[in-house]
């Protein structure tokens, strides 16, 4: 979310979108609570232990999972580790630059990470090999190929889709037979932006640029909330927050149906 774009073009764009909102419309004709088309192709990359190619409208990204033995954190000696990383590579957008991950990429990775971790979708105690010494480390690497807006929802879908198809490569490391990674839930992050007093799901790139605030809500199959992040400067009221929570729950349960087809 860039809140600092103050060029004339940005202003014209803002006015245009604002006028549409007043008429209850969005530039691409969607309803305020409507997602763009979603496709999820799992097992896209066979060198990965799990993978998913996601498109969400023009946004396209590839999630690859690598599972390796490694040391546990000192304070959780009997638990595996999940490390989520996102690469906003310059191939994906004229705005991205090469280099170590910046603020925006770090925030996305940490929000996706918390959504998965806090849902307890992955039972980390099942990833312990030898307590205090060796556990499975799950690297979730998100490779953005085309930024068409709302990277975070696409990343969230891709991460859980890739995890659902992940194999623990025990044989490769002489640690027994390969087993599927046990996944207990499908947590999904849904982003809502506030613009012109309206709440809109799944912002396109243009909408994202002009939105003054957005709220990301991760929810689970039972409707519970497992993560939340407000970004952007504009404040929200408690009522607005609760409305967004409801929108996110409804949208997530719709998207979750896609996963039944996977």
């Amino acid at each position: 979310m860039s809140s600092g774009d103050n060029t004339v073009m940005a202003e014209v764009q803002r006015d245009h979108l604002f006028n549409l909102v007043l008429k209850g419309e969005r530039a691409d004709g969607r309803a305020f609570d409507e997602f763009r088309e979603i496709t999820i192709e799992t097992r896209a990359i066979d060198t990965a232990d799990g993978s998913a190619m996601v498109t969400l409208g023009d946004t396209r990204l590839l999630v690859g999972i690598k599972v390796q033995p490694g040391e546990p954190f000192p304070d959780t000696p009997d638990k595996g580790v999940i490390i989520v990383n996102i690469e906003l590579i310059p191939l994906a957008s004229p705005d991205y630059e090469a280099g170590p991950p910046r603020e925006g990429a770090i925030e996305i990775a940490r929000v996706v990470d918390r959504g998965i971790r806090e849902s307890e979708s992955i039972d980390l105690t099942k990833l312990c090999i030898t307590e205090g010494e060796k556990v499975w480390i799950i690297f979730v690497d998100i490779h953005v190929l085309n930024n068409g807006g709302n990277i975070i929802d696409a990343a969230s879908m891709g991460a859980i889709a890739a995890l659902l198809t992940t194999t623990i490569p025990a044989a490769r490391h002489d640690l027994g037979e390969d087993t599927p990674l046990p996944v207990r839930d499908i947590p999904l992050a849904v982003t809502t932006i506030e613009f012109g007093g309206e709440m809109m799901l799944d912002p396109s790139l243009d909408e994202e640029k002009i939105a003054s605030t957005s709220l990301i809500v991760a929810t689970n199959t039972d409707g519970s909330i497992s993560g939340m992040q407000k970004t952007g400067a504009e404040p929200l009221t408690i009522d607005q927050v609760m409305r967004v929570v409801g929108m996110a729950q409804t949208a997530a349960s719709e998207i979750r149906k896609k996963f039944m087809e996977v």
Partner: protein
Amino acid sequence: MSEKPEHFIIDGKRLDGRSRDELRPIKIELSPLDRADGSCYLEWGRNKVMAAVYGPRELHPRHRQNMTGAVVQCRYNMASFSVDERIRPGPSRRSVEISKVIRQAFEHVVFTKFFPKTAIDIYIEVLRADAGTRTAGINAASLALADAGIPMRGLVSACAVGKVDGEIVLDLMKEEDNFGEADVPIAMTADNRITLLQMDGRMTTEEFYTALELAKTGCTTVYELQRQALIEKYGDEYRAEGGSDE
């Protein structure tokens, strides 16, 4: 790290004797530092944080300047010795994220338009941590901004709410944060508009709503303490223009 306690709430009292809707003790010291344009030292339970504000001042490099307003910048940092395990100096992914959300908690309230091309820098140093450092840091930074004379729509007040033993409680201490079920740091303006909201853990919608309402009362209490500290320091001067705060 300590063991997980069997219960967090016994006979309506929490591990440190507080009730469910009670904040830890807060101590505020305004202007402890003289190099900064404004500063505030704040103790919140066992947390100790120092906040300083510099600016409005020239922003380098130039291409980062905004022609139509000040750029608010924030650096949240934990001293290496502020927790049990030594932290390696320098930014971590955690501190980068927290710096960002704190910055955005203030971008709305600061009248940035008055100071084009400049930077307003907020520095928060956590000297001793015990859960709730980001909210403690926001409360200190809010006062440091006022101390620096930066014009604002009002103060920002923050506290966390969470869930332990299945109950919604105010202001998690370290054990509750580490082993509890959910943690929700929140920052608000005096008129209860939310400028920071994060959530970690798992809650139902109803629990979450209860948590938001509890946070509101917590932030109001904090706001009163902040206001008192400013009145004590700046007296009538502050009371006079206090209108900008409400």
